[in-house]
């Protein structure tokens, strides 16, 4: 069952790693421009849900529909292409290529999608500016602070004009002030560009930047507002 108007929708997902069930009938849906927080304790299956939704892993059972297309039926190459062009990603740490400068890191998804270097880097600079880190553009990730690095990562997620951004504990490695600022910049940019954000977090104050929250417990989701 697909809620009307949803951009990305998953129904009854099951996924097992070895013998440990990670998802046990989870469901999820998100509308364009919506920010949905996925909450839940460690090991509840939040990250697995995000990986499934983003087409990084395929669920054992269940359907994932993105813009009317069935994700789990797509071959790997097609899902990769989708991630390149339609999705953006922000992770907790270790996501920037350490050899590339910040501008080049932000330009990377654009270049992977086929943009020319000059154009990609111009767009990248624009996004660095939006995220207030244009000053570190020429520096490498190892030379900037954690907060700056995470903003660069957010810029990178936004640069390729995705329809959905998947953020897995995007502020996990940051202090409150930096974390709040990153969340504020991310959600503002996403809302103004009508980008949906799937936000996996265990922090309530981060989740408070969402429009709605979904709780995962033992691989099952509770979406109270929709469940009514």
């Amino acid at each position, binding site marked *: 069952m697909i809620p009307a108007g949803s951009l990305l929708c998953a129904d009854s997902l099951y996924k097992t790693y070895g013998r440990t069930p990670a998802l046990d009938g989870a469901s999820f849906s998100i509308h364009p421009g919506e920010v949905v927080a996925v909450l839940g*304790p460690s090991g509840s299956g939040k990250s697995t849900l995000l990986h499934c939704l983003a087409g990084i892993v395929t669920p054992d059972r269940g359907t994932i529909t993105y813009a009317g297309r069935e994700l789990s039926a797509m071959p790997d190459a097609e899902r990769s292409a989708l991630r390149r062009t339609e999705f953006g990603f922000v992770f907790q740490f270790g996501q920037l290529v350490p050899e590339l400068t910040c501008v080049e890191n932000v330009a990377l998804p654009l270049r992977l999608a086929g943009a020319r270097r000059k154009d990609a880097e111009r767009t990248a600079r624009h996004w660095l500016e939006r995220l207030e880190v244009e000053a570190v553009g020429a520096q490498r990730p190892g030379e900037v602070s954690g907060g700056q690095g995470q903003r660069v990562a957010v810029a990178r997620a936004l640069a390729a004009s995705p329809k959905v951004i998947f953020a897995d504990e995007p502020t996990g490695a940051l202090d409150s002030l930096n974390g709040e600022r990153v969340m504020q910049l991310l959600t503002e940019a996403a809302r103004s560009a009508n980008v949906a954000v799937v936000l996996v977090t265990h922090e*309530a*104050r981060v*989740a*408070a930047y969402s*429009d709605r929250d979904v709780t995962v417990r033992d691989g099952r989701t509770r979406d*109270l507002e929709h469940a009514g």
Partner: protein
Amino acid sequence: MSIGHTLLGLLESGPRHGYDLKRAFDEKFGHDRPLHYGQVYSTMSRLLKNGLVEVDGVESGGGPERKRYAITEAGITDVGAWLAQPEKPEPYLQSTLYTKVVLALLTGRSAEALLDTQRTEHLRLMRILTDRKRKGDLADQLICDHALFHLEADLRWLELTAARLDRLAAEVRA
């Protein structure tokens, strides 16, 4: 904290005398403030008047008041509605929430759902505060942050309680 709803909830497991009710209440919820008899009788008479309890029988001899109370259908519905209703997030909410969780466990209702509902309510308020903070000036931000940190603490407590529900249920029902 609503004493009326709590006493009603205690009656759900079966009819009790007023004295029993007080003892059960003290044992489970009145850790530092035992209930006065007067409070029990005034509450029970209010509940009787509203039709949420009825007198099940009167025993003679012994104590001053030997009425036995039983919960009515309307009473059960009222307890259910109370448990399902999230509390308005405010400081020092824990005792109410705790009572609700214990009652839910005692009456076989889903304590997990109760906690989730409460969390959603907390988050709703946090969203409002976050939104206000985003639009407001520094003073607003600081005030909102203060509230947010308290709410966050509550939420952590909710999270922790949710993770320990099994153990709590075992203790409460013991």
